[in-house]
């Protein structure tokens, strides 16, 4: 039994319920226990353009809460995972900054030492649970399903900070999907950005990025797209119709979270996986 404090972030627990539902259904089946912990806040990453110190402080604060509970953190959002990783990287090389941050954290009775580990969905499944264990739980093979993976920029770059997946040729989601019998295939736009980081200030351009990637996936006749980031999913799934308008195409690409795909292969009830919450046409997959 592996045990983690669930660090939910902002986007997943306030609107991307399908990700949270499928995580809470699937991980316990793989002997991973998630502990709900009160007190967490935003990871700070969305504020990096405004004030980088705010980002660093918020990230350290969340890590400190994990340390206080003496637990490692499960961080399902790549953006949060990046923010917390970068904070650990910065503070391990800058003692002066660490002392300044700790001086501020003291008001909430918190202290950052850098002792909590953080994992994302992909490395938890691939490296810690392992492909062999996943295979044991497959009840329904996804044979013949052609899938396009999308990792999310913050999960794979920059490798200098230490990311859970390779920067230029990420393959861990592919390995997991192969274990389910599905057929993950390469496509040239695999590393393209979803556009979400500029949704706050350049909405049309952000949606155009989303539309361009989905259009290419549709043209290459994939059955579905699989992602692991609530921000990317918000673009590719929740805003697919709007994204289609920007590229003058009717987009009909089913987009699913990796944990939803796992749940389907494990024969979990579809409603429990939040499949009725996906806005993209997931029903046409007939799973």
């Amino acid at each position, binding site marked *: 039994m592996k045990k983690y404090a669930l660090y939910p972030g902002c986007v997943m627990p306030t*609107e991307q319920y399908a990700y949270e539902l499928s995580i809470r259904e699937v991980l316990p089946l793989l002997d991973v226990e998630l502990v709900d912990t*009160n007190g967490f806040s*935003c990871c700070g990453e969305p504020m990096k*353009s405004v*004030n*980088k110190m705010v980002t660093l402080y918020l990230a350290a604060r969340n890590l400190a809460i994990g340390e206080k509970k003496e637990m490692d953190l499960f961080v399902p959002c790549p953006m949060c995972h990046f923010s917390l990783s970068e904070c650990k990287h910065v503070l391990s090389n800058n003692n002066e900054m660490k002392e300044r*941050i700790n001086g*501020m954290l003291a008001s909430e009775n918190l202290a950052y030492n850098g002792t909590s580990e953080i994992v994302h969905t992909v490395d938890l499944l691939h490296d810690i649970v392992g492909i062999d264990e996943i295979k044991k739980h497959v009840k329904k093979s996804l044979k013949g399903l052609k899938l396009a993976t999308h990792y999310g920029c913050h999960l794979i770059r920059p490798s200098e900070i230490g990311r859970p997946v390779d920067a230029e040729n990420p393959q861990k989601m592919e390995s997991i999907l192969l274990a389910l019998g599905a057929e993950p295939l390469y496509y040239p736009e695999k590393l393209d950005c979803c556009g979400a980081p500029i949704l706050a200030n350049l909405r049309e351009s952000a949606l*155009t990025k989303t539309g361009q990637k989905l259009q290419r996936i549709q043209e290459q006749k994939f059955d579905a797209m699989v992602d692991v980031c609530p921000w990317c999913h918000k673009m590719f799934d929740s805003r697919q119709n709007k994204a289609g308008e920007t590229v003058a195409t009717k987009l009909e690409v089913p987009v699913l979270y990796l944990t939803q795909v796992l749940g389907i292969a494990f024969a979990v009830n579809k409603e429990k996986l939040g499949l*009725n919450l996906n806005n993209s046409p997931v029903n046409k997959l007939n799973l």
Partner: protein
Amino acid sequence: MSIVDLTSMAQSQTELRNEINERLAKLQNEISDYCFQCGKCTAGCEAHKLLELEPHKIVALTKRGLIDEMVNSDVIWTCMSCFKCWERCPQKVAPIEILNALKNMAVASGKQIPGQYTSMLQSILSIGLIQDVQEVSTHDNKIVKRESLGLPPISKPVDAAKFQMALTKLAVEKV
């Protein structure tokens, strides 16, 4: 209190501005030693494909000290933080870090912050998260919320006042 109010409090703003200036001066020195304008950053840049961001030019302009010009330009706000420039730079220059410093400086100098950044920061100050729990609709057009899906209450700062105080202090004066 809005972020604009927070960042225009004269004395502390000067301090923050000095710090960012120092950071940029440091960047400027480092860049002059390393960047040789190969353009790999711009070749991969996600914002370049759609908008007009050219990270290698941002680096070159910083190197030449044209900082105010860039702080006042809209182009620094087109970065999609895809990190390809940082990943692929053979000299480890990380143009994205320069862009972040320029944006921070634009905010600290009281320039209007674009888009929803202000409301996101206000939301973090009041509830700890960039937005509160939203209603979403299902395939068959039913409106659902966290509770109706059987999800537990959301994790938020326990002592909101203390959280807000620390963060406000940070937004006003540097740590």
